[in-house]
């Protein structure tokens, strides 16, 4: 029935068939485009920030503009790129394919969620036009309620809508994974990417509504003055921090867990070896999801949080380190005695490993009470969270390279893909290792001016940022080149055994004419490489 050229891209035509589509693959692509646009915008802000910091005094913008730049850089990166990047774009595309399903459980809700996202994003961008926001992405009271510019209201409303977009996506994923698994696919026969998405969805469901009510309270506080968070009216600003971090710490794992899922896929498929200790990786995802709810107080050790709470939160914080360490060791063990092809996705996977290791290990300084006091709110924290957030971006790009042949039906230049990755990672190290040093020497974050002794380090950091941008442009170049001139991709270019590689590239509108039998998603022994089609074919 399926004509070879009939795929989800050509199934129907016209702009309306895209904007009103209920196909998870098209919605995933629309997310991808929107998210990449936001990434570009936030990236430009980052470069402006690094340019401003070339000299201790004013370089290109005023202090007020600088404050708006870092706020929007943070808010757009987090809410429009890092949080939705993997689940909404890649997850939407891949999840039903990996389940062997025709779509997510609620396709209309999926489309609605996308438009909520677009509307929220538009409100955030609008705030730039009405004058910007200068609160930092954390919106701490009473600065955000009393002093900040009026642009804070559209931003808060925007983030509120984005939160609900995220909740609905999570809801959709939970129900899809529960109810739409292909016959024979037990919980422990799901690809690990789905475990990552499932754990993420749990957190989206349980944490994001608290962000919703926090932002709602902040809007009401600002517009009506209810005095819950505003000390001027009898409120408690530290209570706001509890509310905010109850969401925003789990949010860190909302960002990281899908990335870990991607890495599990990448490491196993490109090492052509069964993932090491499937169950430990699956359970550690759930463990991270649950533990992450108990640790938010480590953002508040110097805020006036009581010593008792500090102690509890510090102790609980270290609990998250264990499942994270387990995952890292499992990935290494997967590579051990594998057959590693250093493809572009694999380059990004090992880049993730090395960056995220530093991100996780430097978290020890922040979890420990004694050292936290010195390094919190300095560039050390800035460097630490970039060493955890940027790996998420790395996994996103790696995942994009991994599934790109499936999404577009085209291959790309492996050579330039690898060069882009190397340039980006080298630039990243230069940018942020210098910031660790500045931080331990006492350079406070969000500072427009700095003491002249930090000049050399700041300039190195800015140079690194430029290299990062170059690496990203090279990556973008490979994608564009692939769209224009890429060779046709095989159905299974890497030799993966999960369902998405068993339908054509690009997949047909209904994904599978017949759902293939569910087996071990990491048992790749049945697949044989055929150089003439640049892909793998199942042994007959």
């Amino acid at each position: 029935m399926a004509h070879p050229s009939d795929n989800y891209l050509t199934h129907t035509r016209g702009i309306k068939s895209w904007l009103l589509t209920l196909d998870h693959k098209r919605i995933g692509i629309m997310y991808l485009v929107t998210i990449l646009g936001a990434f570009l915008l936030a990236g430009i802000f980052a470069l402006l920030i690094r340019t401003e910091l070339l000299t201790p005094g004013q370089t290109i913008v005023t202090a007020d503009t600088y404050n708006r730049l870092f706020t929007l850089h943070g808010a757009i990166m987090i809410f429009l790129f890092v949080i939705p990047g993997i689940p909404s774009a890649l997850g939407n595309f891949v999840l039903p394919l990996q389940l062997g399903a025709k779509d997510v459980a609620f396709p209309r809700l999926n489309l609605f969620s996308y438009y909520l996202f677009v509307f929220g994003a538009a409100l955030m961008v609008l705030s730039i036009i009405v004058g910007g926001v200068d609160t930092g992405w954390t919106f701490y009271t009473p600065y955000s309620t009393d002093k900040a510019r009026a642009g804070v209201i559209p931003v808060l409303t925007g983030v509120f809508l984005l939160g609900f977009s995220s909740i609905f996506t999570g809801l959709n994923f939970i129900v899809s994974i529960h109810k739409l698994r292909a016959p024979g696919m037990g919980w422990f026969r799901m690809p690990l990417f789905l475990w990552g998405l499932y754990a993420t969805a749990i957190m989206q469901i349980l944490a994001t509504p608290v962000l919703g009510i926090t932002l709602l309270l902040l809007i009401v506080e600002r517009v009506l003055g209810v005095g819950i968070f505003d000390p001027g009216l009898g409120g408690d600003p530290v209570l706001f921090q509890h509310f905010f971090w109850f969401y925003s710490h789990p949010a860190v794992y909302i960002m990281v867990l899908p990335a870990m899922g991607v890495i599990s896929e990448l490491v196993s498929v490109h090492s052509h070896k069964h993932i090491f200790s499937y169950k430990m990786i699956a359970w550690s995802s759930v463990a991270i999801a649950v533990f992450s709810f108990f640790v938010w107080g480590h953002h508040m050790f110097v805020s006036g949080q009581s010593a008792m709470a500090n102690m509890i939160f510090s102790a609980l914080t270290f609990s998250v380190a264990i499942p994270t360490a387990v995952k890292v060791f499992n990935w290494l063990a997967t590579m051990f005695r594998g057959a590693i092809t250093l493809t572009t996705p694999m380059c990004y996977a090992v880049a993730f490993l090395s960056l995220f290791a530093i991100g996780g290990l430097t978290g020890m300084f922040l979890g420990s009470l004694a050292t936290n006091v010195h390094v919190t709110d300095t560039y050390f924290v800035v460097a630490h969270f970039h060493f955890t957030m940027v790996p998420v971006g790395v996994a996103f790009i790696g995942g994009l390279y991994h599934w790109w042949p499936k999404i577009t039906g085209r291959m790309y230049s492996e050579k330039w893909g690898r060069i882009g990755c190397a340039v980006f990672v080298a630039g990243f190290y230069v940018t942020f290792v210098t910031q660790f040093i500045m931080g331990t020497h006492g350079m406070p974050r969000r500072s427009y001016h700095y003491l002249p002794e930090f000049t050399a380090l700041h300039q190195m950091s800015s140079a690194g940022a430029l290299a990062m941008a170059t690496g990203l442009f090279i990556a973008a170049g490979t994608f564009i080149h692939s769209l224009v001139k890429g060779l046709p991709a095989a159905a299974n270019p890497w030799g993966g055994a999960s369902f998405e590689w068993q339908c054509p590239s690009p997949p047909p509108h209904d994904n599978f004419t017949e759902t293939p039998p569910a087996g071990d998603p990491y048992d790749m022994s049945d697949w044989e490489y055929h150089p003439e089609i640049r892909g793998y074919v199942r042994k007959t």
Partner: protein
Amino acid sequence: MNEKASHSAARPHVVPLRVLLAVWGALMVFTALTVAATEVDLGAFNLFIALGIATAKASLVLLYFMHLRYDKPFNAVVFICALLFVAIFISLVLVDTTQYQPELIPGYAPELLK
């Protein structure tokens, strides 16, 4: 397809009207009871009585009006998880805020006088 749909979905539990009426009656009695309980001063115990009655009422609604008793157990797990995480949230925040009360300036609210 239509035939199949009506057969497979027609099997959900239909709660007898008798049960619904009994639950409704119990809820009304509990409401009267909780108002009456405030007339008796039992100190801090009043709060527990009020919350206990509320929980009993909520359980009745959940089990019978919302069919949780006859439903897939996982739906109950979802609901209980939500309550559990609210409890975690409130209790950890309370652990902190009750501790730091001595540091607060009593009655600080300068903007109210404006």
